[in-house]
């Protein structure tokens, strides 16, 4: 909401400086977003008079001017404007001045051999308008040397405030003035509106058939108006706040909209067929609005229509067909109250915003229909002449004057600030509240404050005027002793995993929670698709972290990254809920070409397997009990992927190489290794603070190596577990150290070499004991189909 300082002073009698006003606005909750004085930009441009104009000897279109700038001797200026003539009062720019419209800093220069010391400016050169047919020709005889901005009435700072949605009253300058007056920055001027008696009955009917959407429709006709351009003061006001002056009648409605927060509409009576009625739109109706677009209407929308067609999307935008024009002589002024909720719904449905909607949607003052109509009539008569009819008042505006019970001590209770009850009453009165004091105060809010709905609102009114600065900084009560830990086990797991992954060399990325539908489909399908995504590529809530990570890997690869190790810790959005997950992607070179190790190596399934096991171990998962199950979701390479779990149903992670088809779809190359850790499935540790007793065994462990031959289909893990199971108490570790197939091994078979570590407890193993254990190991291996290699 923009306004100028002088506009504010129409309503506020104040001696306060601009700075005080700006500070005051922010203090009461009207955040100042900017202050701009056009005069500052125009400061170097001053009124000057052309004393003489002589033809240029070298150029037909140029003249040599003698200009009185008000500073010393007249100066010589070469000028090409056709309207330059002796006696003209214009705007002069001295050498050294930057002229914004042509982006040139003036210098003393010779133009076709004649020295020119400055410039007479056009409106376009000063960025005031597009006019460039000649230099500015000021009316009257303004004092030479006066700043041009002053002559133009532009020396008026424009203040831009952010009005919060609850403060409809501050969508008009008067409401802002009232707040400042309450703050003590001046006195609110009476602002009374005189009633104007009409000389004849309104010649057309004004009705409301939609008392819910339009509870009140006031109006009157004015005959014999002359709709020319509005006077300079009005044009300046509107221009200053960024509105384009159109015609006196339109400018009047715009002015009142910003002056009082009161939207109005003016119809050209000649273009109406009969009177006007507020009603719901009918199925299939549409209206060509003033913005040049046609809107299809629905029966949910309130409109203003005559006997023939819809002329106005009520409270949002007028229609093109019945708008006033220069030739308009008879008008109908509409001043109505529209239901804020319906305005909001209609505006959203049509995707149409306007200054009127912004106000009606927040709820205009229902007690200012009469005032708005009379004020408009007054201005029409003053600026356009004409004869007004008597008013028509169809319907009743709602009675909005919220009543609130309040105890003055509540202010202290909610804010910690003590404000004397007398002062509280004074503040409330200044804001227009009616206060009945007593044990409990009975407070009636003014009609323009429909936002007031409880005692807490009264507290806010009191404190925002008395000053938020006075809120005393008060320490929160603190529990005794050292602060207690607050993190949950799940939060601790998350933090540990994150730092473990980073410590292992992975970089943490944060990618969008929503992904492209085709990517969601490739990774199991999304359960939630947005109705209004910001783009088609960000439409489906991700069922997996991998598409986002793989896409990030691709972007990095495109930028030339040789090695990409990324992880993300975030949610997957599944039918069953949002599940915290850690995703990993490895792409590019695991190891670049190296002087020690030779050729570059890529990533494969075993890199992510190692990563997954390490991270799960860091997170406290019982990885020694975890099993690897071959195969994973369809987006993995079917032969090079697996699930890891405490059982087939208790899956902790999925890992492997990305399906080659997806590697291609994502424009990547080589093997891309990916994994997801479903760490919310990690069982909670059954932790006791005290550890069970343990002393390292006194006797040294012994090792024995075995080589088995088995079908290639036998999973290594199955064999290792079988070996372990042969003598679980004595076998401390089982490790596969060689894998071989080929010469000497039957086709389809492979050799697996295993080192078993045996831990004696009280006394060393005898050779016989070791033989017995070895026998059990061989027997156990045989049960899974592995034979000792001879």
């Amino acid at each position, binding site marked *: 909401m923009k306004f100028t300082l002088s506009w504010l002073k129409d309503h506020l009698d104040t001696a306060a400086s601009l700075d005080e006003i700006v500070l005051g606005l*922010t*203090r*009461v*909750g009207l*955040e100042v977003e900017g202050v701009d004085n056009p005069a500052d930009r125009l400061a170097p441009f001053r009124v000057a008079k052309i004393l003489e104009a002589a033809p240029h000897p070298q150029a037909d279109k140029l003249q040599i001017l003698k200009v009185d700038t008000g500073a010393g001797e007249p100066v010589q200026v070469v000028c090409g404007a056709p309207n330059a003539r002796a006696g003209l009062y214009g705007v002069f720019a001295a050498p050294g001045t930057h002229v914004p419209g042509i982006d040139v800093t003036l210098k003393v220069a010779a133009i076709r051999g004649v020295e020119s010391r400055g410039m007479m400016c056009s409106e376009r050169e000063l960025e005031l308008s597009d006019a460039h047919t000649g230099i500015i020709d000021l009316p009257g005889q303004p004092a030479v040397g006066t700043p041009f901005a002053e002559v133009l009435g532009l020396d008026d700072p424009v203040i831009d405030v952010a009005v*919060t*949605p609850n403060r409809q009253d501050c969508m008009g300058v008067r409401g802002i003035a009232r707040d400042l007056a309450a703050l003590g920055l001046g006195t609110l001027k009476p602002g009374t509106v005189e009633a104007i008696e009409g000389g004849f009955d309104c010649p057309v009917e004004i009705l409301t058939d939609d008392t819910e959407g339009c509870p009140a429709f006031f109006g009157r006709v004015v005959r014999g108006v002359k709709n020319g351009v509005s006077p300079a003061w009005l044009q300046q006001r509107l221009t200053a706040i960024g509105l384009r002056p159109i015609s006196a009648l339109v400018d009047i409605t715009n002015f009142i909209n910003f002056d009082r927060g009161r939207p109005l509409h003016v119809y050209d009576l000649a273009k109406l067929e009969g009177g006007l009625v507020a009603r719901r739109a009918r199925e299939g109706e549409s209206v060509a609005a003033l913005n040049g677009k046609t809107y299809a209407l629905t029966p949910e929308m309130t409109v203003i229509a005559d006997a023939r067609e819809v002329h106005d999307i009520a409270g949002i935008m007028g229609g093109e067909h019945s708008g006033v024009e220069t030739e308009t002589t008879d008008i109908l002024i509409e001043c109505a109250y529209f239901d*804020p909720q319906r305005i909001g719904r209609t505006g*959203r449905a049509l995707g149409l915003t306007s200054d009127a909607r912004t106000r009606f*949607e*927040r709820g205009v003052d229902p007690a200012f229909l009469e005032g708005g109509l009379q004020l408009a009539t007054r201005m029409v008569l003053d600026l356009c002449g004409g004869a007004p009819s008597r008013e028509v008042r169809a319907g009743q505006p709602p009675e909005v004057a919220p009543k609130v019970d309040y105890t003055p001590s509540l202010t202290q*209770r*909610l*804010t910690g600030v003590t404000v004397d009850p007398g002062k509280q009453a004074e503040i409330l009165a200044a804001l227009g509240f009616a206060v009945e004091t007593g044990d409990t105060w009975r407070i009636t809010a003014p009609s323009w404050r429909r936002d007031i709905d*409880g005692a*807490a*609102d009264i507290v806010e009114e009191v*404190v*925002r005027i008395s000053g938020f*600065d006075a*809120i*005393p*900084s008060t*320490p*929160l009560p603190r*529990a005794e002793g050292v*602060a207690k*830990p*607050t*993190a*949950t086990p799940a*939060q601790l797991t998350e933090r540990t995993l994150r730092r473990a*992954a*980073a*410590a*292992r*060399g*992975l*970089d*943490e*990325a*944060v990618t*969008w*929670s*929503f992904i492209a539908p085709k990517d969601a489909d490739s990774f199991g399908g999304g359960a*939630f*698709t*947005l*109705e*209004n*995504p*910001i783009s088609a590529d960000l439409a489906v809530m991700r069922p997996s972290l991998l598409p986002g990570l793989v896409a*990030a890997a691709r*972007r*990095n690869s495109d930028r030339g*990254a040789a090695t990409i190790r*990324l992880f993300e*810790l975030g949610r997957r959005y599944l039918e069953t809920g*949002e599940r915290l997950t850690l995703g990993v992607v490895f792409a590019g070179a695991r190891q670049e070409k*190296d002087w020690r190790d030779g050729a570059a190596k890529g990533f494969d399934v075993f890199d992510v397997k190692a990563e997954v096991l390490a991270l799960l171990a860091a997170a406290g998962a019982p990885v020694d009990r975890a099993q690897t199950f071959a195969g994973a979701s369809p987006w993995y390479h079917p032969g090079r992927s697996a699930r890891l779990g405490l059982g087939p149903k208790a899956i902790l992670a999925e890992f492997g190489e990305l399906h080659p088809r997806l590697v291609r779809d994502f424009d990547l190359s080589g093997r891309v290794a990916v994994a997801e850790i479903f760490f919310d499935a990690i069982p909670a540790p059954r932790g006791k603070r005290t550890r069970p007793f343990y002393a390292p065994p006194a006797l040294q462990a012994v090792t024995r190596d075995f080589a088995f031959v088995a079908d290639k289909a036998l999973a290594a893990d199955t064999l290792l577990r079988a070996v372990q199971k042969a003598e679980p108490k004595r076998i401390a570790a089982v490790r596969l150290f060689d894998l071989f197939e080929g010469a000497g091994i039957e086709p389809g078979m492979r050799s697996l070499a295993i080192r078993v570590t045996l831990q004696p407890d009280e006394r060393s193993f005898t050779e016989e004991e070791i033989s017995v254990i070895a026998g059990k190991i061989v027997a156990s291996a045989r049960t899974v189909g592995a034979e000792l290699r001879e």
Partner: protein
Amino acid sequence: MPPEDRKHWGTVFNGIKQTFLRGYEEWRAFSEEFEINAQLMDDTVDVTLPVDPARLGTVHPVSQVMDELAEIFADLGFAVATGPEIEDDWHNFTALNIPESHPARAMHDTFYFPEALAKEGRRFLLRTHTSPVQIRTMMSEQPPIRIIAPGRVYRSDSDATHTPMFHQLEGLVIDRNIHMGHLKWTLETFIKAFFEVDDVTLRFRPSYFPFTEPSAEVDVGCSWEGGTLKIGGEASWLEILGSGMVHPRVIAACGLDPAEWQGFAFGAGIDRLAMLKYGMTDLRAFFDGDVRWLKHYGFSPFAVPTLSGGVGA
């Protein structure tokens, strides 16, 4: 040989033997040394050859800042709460005193899920703020309550300073005699700890949020020296927080008695806090996963924020 002679010659021979033995030892040591030295001559490498670079990853600034926030607020007795990102309109709006027709609903640029998914008349959406966690906490826990709720939030908005997904921090305190003075102290204490400054000036401006009353926007006093932000002083103001006393209607909507329980809530943008503290300028880069950016702006996994070690990595 007479015993005295035997003793004499014994000493003599023993001396000769010792001399020989010493000589042999010396010779042996010398020749070993010679041999090692000879080997070393052939066993010299160029020690300036490069080794495998240390492979240390990074923690994303948003995560780091969330850990910092958790650490600071833990000292003030706040736990970390979470809630769903796919929310319903009751928790995201209605319970927060934003009825259906409220202009604030339209202002939130909400991402919606199709009407068909609605359950019990509640429409699903992506939460537009972390405030629904207030509701969920008040409905599931008995006061006194002190929580912060960091997390992802979503608005249909995208330009240089807005991304459709970003991170917010919510704070909530519900107790018997909590007032705006406590809010002011809490935020001052937080800002001092977060930006690691001894003195901070906060400016509370009256504002409007449907779920707080009174409401305040909070600016922090700062200055810009050579383009670098310095927290402190009153040369310039930076808007960093929205806050206020929890609206009685919100407390009542959660099944608590507003005559008994009152308190404050606040919200801040985590990405923005990170940018102000660590100097990033482009929000969009946060979500791009550019390894070069992550290496530069990310944090060492060992830079765990702690009260003793500091919360500024």
